[in-house]
């Protein structure tokens, strides 16, 4: 390259940069915005980030302004006087992260305001009514772990367990099932919203890798086969005892079947299910006798934060044939909310108590999750059945455990809401919802005040605000955790492929350490 070429290159670069600058910064726009005409109504924005409560540590809520215009501007201001302004030639408003975070930091516990301006083709700016959001005082856990899958029917091939940093847009894959022969993985369960102890259930498509539970203890993965003579099926929905030494789980014989005329084609059914628990120190698996009745279906275990009770759902089994799907009277199965006391020292179970009868509530109860402070429980309510994600009418209910009063949460829609997860400080609830389209589950967050008031939910923000417009995967089982999962990808997959399975047995003593 000779000097002439270099000069030419520099000249071209300069011209290009100038053009870019001119494109991005229309002259005199500040003056024009100050003279903006009021639109007299709020702007239409997507996703809906208006009148909601947001965590002070959430990443920028990028959005699209659904108004016709030649240019767009958004001013975000805090009560303390700090503000940031975003200009865009397109409808996409991308908020700079650092300034956003500074603004949120200053606005903790207060409101922030979004002034949206749209420039018409004639150059006149229009100002819409201010959008107000409240910044909560309490942070949300920094990471979200979820299973990313297609809309699954009978077959599965590709699935990923992902984690997303909620303070920015970083996403990483914890485990891709391609690395172990396109096996299945499900029900990731973290102890105390941390990552030093968690389980992932898996089963391999290639039989060589087997099936069971991946137990991570202090960054070391073990493969545990929880199947024993008395608990012959694989563990499914799990819950850690707050002591961290016991994992309660359900064993489910789940089948899918399909509707010919309903909008939501799929439906799941538990042909049989029982409860069991795994004791870490003795590597033993035991059933919970009084919650493993042959005439009932018991599932969805969830420990109370004090470890004294195991909540679960139970329904009478209305069929004898454990193979036929769908079974007789499948649409009459209604689960009650139950609990059973547990003595950690003696490892002794009490008698089941009914917390909420489905016949009295008028709906079937599933997926109970108790807030870490022990104050509330959120569960799913459906007309029948125990798979809320596949029931279009699934709603979230909030129960005050001190009074056992419950009510339908205001964050519900007529579509399915399910797979909820509490934050470690009990102030945030992440859940999957099909509210936007009835088909693709997205993650929403709601603020839960100490009084039990529920904030308007907002969708998991994305760097590209149009991300959800073409994203055909679903977010399943979102779990909030405080720190990132340190083990990822091949580190876990290698254990799946090569590590030995640890067989569980009966404990020497029934007592839980």
């Amino acid at each position: 390259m000779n000097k002439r070429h270099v000069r030419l290159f520099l000249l071209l670069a300069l011209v290009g940069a100038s053009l870019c600058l001119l494109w991005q910064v229309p002259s005199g726009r500040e003056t024009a915005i100050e003279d903006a005409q009021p639109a007299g109504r709020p702007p239409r924005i997507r996703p809906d980030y208006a009148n909601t409560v947001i965590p002070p540590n959430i990443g920028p809520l990028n959005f699209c302004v659904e108004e016709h215009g030649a240019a767009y501007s958004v001013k975000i201001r805090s009560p303390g006087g700090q503000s940031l302004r975003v200009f865009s030639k397109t409808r996409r408003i991308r908020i700079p992260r650092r300034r956003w975070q500074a603004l949120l930091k200053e606005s903790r516990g207060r409101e922030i305001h979004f002034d949206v301006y749209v420039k018409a083709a004639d150059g006149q700016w229009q100002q819409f009514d201010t959008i107000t959001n409240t910044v909560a005082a309490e942070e949300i856990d920094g990471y979200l772990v979820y299973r990313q899958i297609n809309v699954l029917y009978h077959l599965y091939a590709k699935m990923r367990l992902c984690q997303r940093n909620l303070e920015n847009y970083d996403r990483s894959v914890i485990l891709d099932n391609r690395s172990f022969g396109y096996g299945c993985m499900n029900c990731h369960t973290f102890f105390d919203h941390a990552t030093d102890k968690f389980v992932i259930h898996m089963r391999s498509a290639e039989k060589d890798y087997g099936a069971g539970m991946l137990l991570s203890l202090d960054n070391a993965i073990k493969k545990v086969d929880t199947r024993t003579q008395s608990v012959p099926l694989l563990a499914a929905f799990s819950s850690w005892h707050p002591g961290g030494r016991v994992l309660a789980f359900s064993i489910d014989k789940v089948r899918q079947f399909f509707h010919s005329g309903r909008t939501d084609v799929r439906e799941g059914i538990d042909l049989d299910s029982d409860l069991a628990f795994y004791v870490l120190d003795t590597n033993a698996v035991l059933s919970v006798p009084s919650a493993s009745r042959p005439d009932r279906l018991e599932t969805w275990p969830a420990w109370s934060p004090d470890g004294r009770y195991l909540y679960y759902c139970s329904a009478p089994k209305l069929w004898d044939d454990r193979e036929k799907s769908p079974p007789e009277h499948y649409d009459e199965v209604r689960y009650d909310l139950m609990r059973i006391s547990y003595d950690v020292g003696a490892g002794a179970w009490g008698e089941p108590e009914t917390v909420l009868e489905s016949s009295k509530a008028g709906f079937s109860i599933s997926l109970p999750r108790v807030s870490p402070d022990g104050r509330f429980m959120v569960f799913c309510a459906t007309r029948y059945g125990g798979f809320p994600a596949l029931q279009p009418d699934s709603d979230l209910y909030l129960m005050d455990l001190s009074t056992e009063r419950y009510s339908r949460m205001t964050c519900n829609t007529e579509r399915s809401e399910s797979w909820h997860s509490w934050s470690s400080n009990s102030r945030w609830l992440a859940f999957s919802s099909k509210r936007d389209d009835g088909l693709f589950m997205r993650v929403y967050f709601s603020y839960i005040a100490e009084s039990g008031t529920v904030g308007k939910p907002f969708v998991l923000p994305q760097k590209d605000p149009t991300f959800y417009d073409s994203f055909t995967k679903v977010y399943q089982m979102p779990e909030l955790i405080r720190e990132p999962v340190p083990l990822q990808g091949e580190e876990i997959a290698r254990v799946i492929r090569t590590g030995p399975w640890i067989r569980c047995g009966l404990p020497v003593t029934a007592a839980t350490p």
Partner: protein
Amino acid sequence: MESAAQRKRERSPVAMMKFWPKLSRRKPQLPAYSFVFFALFYLYIWLVVRPDLIYHGFWITTTFPVFSTGWPFFEEFLVYPGGPVEWFAALLCQSYYYPWAGALVIAAVAALLSLTAHVLITALCDRRPRVLHFVPALLLLLLYNRYVNPLTSALALLAATACACLYVQMPFRKTGHRLALFGLLSVTVYYAAGGAYLLYAALCGLYELLRGWRRALGALCLLSAAVIPYVAGEFVFGLRLRDAYFRLLPFHPDSNPNQPIIVACLYAFFLVAAVGVVLWERFALGRRRAADGSASRPGVGHRKRLAAVFRSLVPFILAVVVLCASYDRDLKGLLRIEYYACNRMWPELLAEARRLPWRHHNLLVNWDVNRALYHTGGLASEMFSFPQHPLGLAPSPATFPELGMTYAGWMKLSDVLFELGRVNESERLTYEVLEFAGDRPRFFQRLSLISMAKGEKQAARILLGALSKDLVYRGWAEEFLHRLNDDALLSADPEIQRLQSVMVEEDVVGSQRLDWMLTQLLTRNTHNRMAFEYLMAYYLLNRDLEGIARNIGRLDDFDYVGVPRHYEEALLLYASGAGTRAILPGRSINPDTRGRLSEVARIIKLYANDPRAAANVLGAEHGASYFFYFAFGSPGDGR
């Protein structure tokens, strides 16, 4: 006798350089007939192979990469070695939709591979190859002639060989410079082309060992083939060893599973050629030295010209041999049927099906043929002109898993059920296929239509949004997105309106028999002609004459003129079996049909003890009749 010191001096790099530099300045130059060769190559791929057959029929012969525009899709390919080439190959494969463009891509890759082969061979042996460098193009031709799409592997190979060419062509003399260049290109090749790096390292190593006389550097190059993938896989990308070393190579599980041996030959060619030409050159050099000083023979110029002409013909002759050896007319027939089915070219599909030998009429062809017959109005009268499988219409969803079909079968069933109005079953099958075959435009197109028909506008928008990221279907998707914005109910779209008028509304769970499903469709809409013809075809196939008689009255719901041939035949059989007259209010049975029944009955009676002989006699004239099918359980191939 040479002394040891003298021999050592002659073999030393300095001494060799006295000899080699003169030769190494020889620039690679493709022979002129190469351009003719690749022009013909292009025309053959465009007009005879037709890359659009691969695009539409990818699941019959080969894997075809999924592609989507936008950063999220691209980002997925950046996190592992080989990803960039995979992405680029997926992008280029979309050109197959337009045969001229797909052929251009394939011909360009073949030409570039030949060029790299030419450069490498020239650099290694200082002789411009006349024919040898055509081998990669010939192997590609062979693969494409068999409708295998090795573009990803070929591009990885091209990346490796192109960088090897760059390496050998760079005029660096110092070992340090060459090592730096090798390292830089190593990182590039490994990241871009994954396992093809092994070939790059081997070619560079061989060049240094055999030609550059830098043994240490050559050994280092070869050693890097073992070290770099391990280091990158273990410490940079977190890959299993198999992926770190072999991704994009022919036998890797994620690579094209078809014809891996030929793809492996493509890779092996470069190695074998590299070693072979050097050995050959040394052998030839020895002979040349021995012949030094000998007088040239008269007439050599004439012979040389003849030899040159012959040499220039060799690649063409070889190409013809390859094409003749690998051409599979029946495979091409299957692909054309798939192409016509995708593009709803029903008469062409039937014409192709008639040409296809009956032994190739598998279940998938059977479904396509029956669908084409329905659309051309021939299902009720020509159905038995083609082979018919007992499940040749559409098996009940209950039997799907047992059929052990590939996802092509599932998608075809989805097509049939979609057109019938069984949208939920079609939706389910499409999602099942999508799970295995990936996010392909055809699936999103189907799912968006279903969502629109079901009134799920938002879901439809998302599916159309995904489809709008496809290079080929973008226009279709954007048009529907606009229409959804203008007319949320899509009241002007005939396809959506048709679907809404026929789709099942009654909700029933679990799997049902096909006749039950078709009857449910007719209960929903008595004018669902496809459901009616399929129901009657189902009864015909199952020799359920009672079913035909029970439903023949539905003819009045449609605009049939007279009674379709096969229904007539079935009704006559029913009447003769039941000992009654075929009753058809307002319609009459053609006397000719009665005559044919008598003829068939007579011949069957004549050969009562030899059904095969009866079938042979009847096949030519009555093989396409329902009488024949009823008697022998399959149509007769009277062609």
